C-alpha cells in the first residue's frame, strides 16, 4: 500500500498529457466529423520543434512552448487549407485515406530531414526528482502535467464561454443552420483543425524533455489518445479528459503490478471490455453528437 501515493501521482502526471492530446483529437472529430489519423505526426513535429530549438538555439522547451502554439496553429491552418479542405465533405473512406496518407507523408518527411536517430532534449533539470509524501516525481513531468492541465482547462473555458467557442459548438451541432446564421463554416473548420493541432503540438513540446524524439514517436502516444477519445464518447471533450486519466491509471497500475511490457495489452483489454458493454463510450448516451454539451 506504500506504493499508492506514487501510483496516483504517476497516473495524474501521465494522464494530463494524454488528455491534452485526446482533447484536440476529439475537438476535431466533434466539429469536422473527421478522425485525424495524422494526429500523432503533429505530436512528433512538436517534439522535433522542441529538440531543434534546444539544440540549435538553446531554447528551453518551456520557452519553445510559447512560440510553438502560434507555429502549430499556423501549421494546422495550412494543412487544413492544403489537405483537409477539399475532402472535408467527402466520404469517410476518402477522409481516412487522406489523413493516413498525411501521417505517412509527415513521418517520411521527418525521416528524410532528421534521419531515424533518436534525439534527446537533455535539460539541466532532466534528472531532478522531487520527493513529497513518499512519492517521487520528475520535475519535467510535473511541469508537463501542470501546463497540459492549464491548456486543457483553457480550451474548455474557450469552448464553453467564448463567442468563438459557441460558434464552433453551433457548427458542430448543425452545420446548415449555422451557415444560415451567417457563420462561415469552412472558416470554423479551419480554426477548429488548427486549434486541435496547436494542442497536440504543445503536447509534443511538453513530452520532448521526457521521451526520445524520432519520426514515429507520435504513434505510441496517439494510440492512447484514440482509446481515450472513443471511451469518452466521440466528440465529448470532458469524456476524453476523464478517459485519458483512466487509461493512464490502467497503464500505471498495470505496469506496477504485472509488468511494463503488459501496459498496452491492459489498456486495450479495458478498451475492448468497455466497448462490449457500452459501445457509445463511457459517457456516450448521446452517441457521436455530444460536442457542445
Amino acid at each position: 500500500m506504500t506504493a499508492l501515493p506514487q501510483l496516483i501521482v504517476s497516473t495524474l502526471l501521465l494522464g494530463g498529457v494524454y488528455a491534452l492530446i485526446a482533447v484536440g483529437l476529439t475537438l476535431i472529430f466533434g466539429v469536422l466529423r473527421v478522425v485525424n489519423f495524422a494526429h500523432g505526426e503533429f505530436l512528433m513535429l512538436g517534439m522535433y520543434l522542441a529538440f531543434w530549438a534546444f539544440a540549435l538555439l538553446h531554447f528551453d522547451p518551456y520557452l519553445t512552448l510559447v512560440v510553438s502554439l502560434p507555429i502549430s496553429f499556423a501549421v494546422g491552418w495550412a494543412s487544413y487549407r492544403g489537405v483537409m479542405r477539399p475532402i472535408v465533405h467527402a466520404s469517410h473512406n476518402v477522409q481516412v485515406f487522406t489523413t493516413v496518407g498525411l501521417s505517412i507523408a509527415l513521418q517520411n518527411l521527418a525521416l528524410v530531414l532528421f534521419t531515424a536517430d533518436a534525439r534527446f532534449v537533455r535539460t539541466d533539470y532532466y534528472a531532478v526528482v522531487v520527493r513529497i509524501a513518499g512519492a517521487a516525481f520528475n520535475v519535467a513531468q510535473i511541469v508537463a502535467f501542470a501546463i497540459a492541465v492549464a491548456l486543457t482547462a483553457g480550451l474548455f473555458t474557450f469552448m464553453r464561454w467564448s463567442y468563438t467557442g459557441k460558434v464552433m459548438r453551433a457548427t458542430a451541432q448543425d452545420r446548415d443552420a449555422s451557415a444560415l446564421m451567417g457563420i462561415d463554416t469552412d472558416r470554423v473548420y479551419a480554426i477548429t483543425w488548427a486549434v486541435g493541432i496547436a494542442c497536440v503540438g504543445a503536447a509534443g513540446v511538453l513530452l520532448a524533455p521526457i521521451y526520445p524524439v524520432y519520426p514515429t514517436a507520435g504513434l505510441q502516444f496517439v494510440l492512447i489518445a484514440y482509446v481515450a477519445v472513443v471511451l469518452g464518447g466521440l466528440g465529448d471533450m470532458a469524456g476524453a479528459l476523464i478517459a485519458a486519466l483512466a487509461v493512464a491509471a490502467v497503464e500505471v497500475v498495470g505496469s506496477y503490478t504485472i509488468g511494463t511490457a503488459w501496459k498496452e495489452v491492459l489498456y486495450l483489454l479495458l478498451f475492448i471490455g468497455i466497448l462490449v458493454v457500452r459501445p457509445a463510450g463511457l459517457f456516450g448516451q448521446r452517441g457521436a453528437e455530444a460536442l457542445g454539451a
Partner: protein
Amino acid sequence: MLTVEGLDVAYGDFQVLWGAELRVDEGEIVCVLGPNGAGKSTLMNTISGLVKPRAGRVTFLDQRVDGLPAHRSAGHGLAHVLERRRLFPFLTVLDNVLLGSHNPRARSHRAETLERVEALFPVVRVRRAQLAHTLSGGEQQMVAIARGLMARPRLLMVDEPFLGLAPQVARDIGLLLRRIREEEGISVVFIEQNVEVALRLADRGYVLESGRTILSGPSAELLRSSEVKRIFLGDVAL
C-alpha cells in the same frame, strides 16, 4: 423583392426542380404548397444558398444571389428557418438566439434586436437559460423563428412552421407570422401541406407538383380552384 425564375435543381442525376418560379413582393405573406416530394424545401434551400442550382436565377433586392454560399444570404437580409426547427440542441435558448445575429449587418444591433424579438416571443426571455433541446415543439418553433428574426431580415422564409404542432399552438404561430409582417414590415414565405391553413394565412400561394410550379395566384382564388382540389384531394374526391 424576391424573384425565382426557371430554377433547375438536381441532386446528382436526380432532378428535383424543373423551371420552378416564385415571386414575393414587399410586405407580402406567400405560401408554397405541394404534396410530399414536390420540391418545396429544395426550392427554399436553393434560394438561401444551401443547394446550388443547375440553371435559372434567384434575384433578391435587385441582386443575383443564386450560387452564393449560404452564409452570405443572412447578410443580404434573407432569413431561412429550416424544416423541423433545427435549433442548436445543446446551446441555451439565449445563445441560439444571439447566434442568429452573427452576420456583420445585424451584429452591431444585437441588444436592440433581442429586445424587440423578446417582445414578440416572450418564450425567448422565459426560457433563455434552458438548453434548446429541452423545449416543447411549439416553443422550439418560436425560438427558431426568433433566431431568424435576429438577423434583421427583410424576408423571412419558414419551412413547415406548423409541422407536428397542436392546433392551438399552430394558430399562435400563424398570428405571430402576421405580426412579424405588420409590426416589423418583414415579408414572409412559408411552406405548408395543409391548403386551408396555408391559404387563410397567406396573401398569395404557389403550388408545386413534381418540381414544377403549376399554379399561383391570390389565396381566395386558389381556395376555389378545382385544380388545387385535384392535386391535394385526388380526382375521386370531386
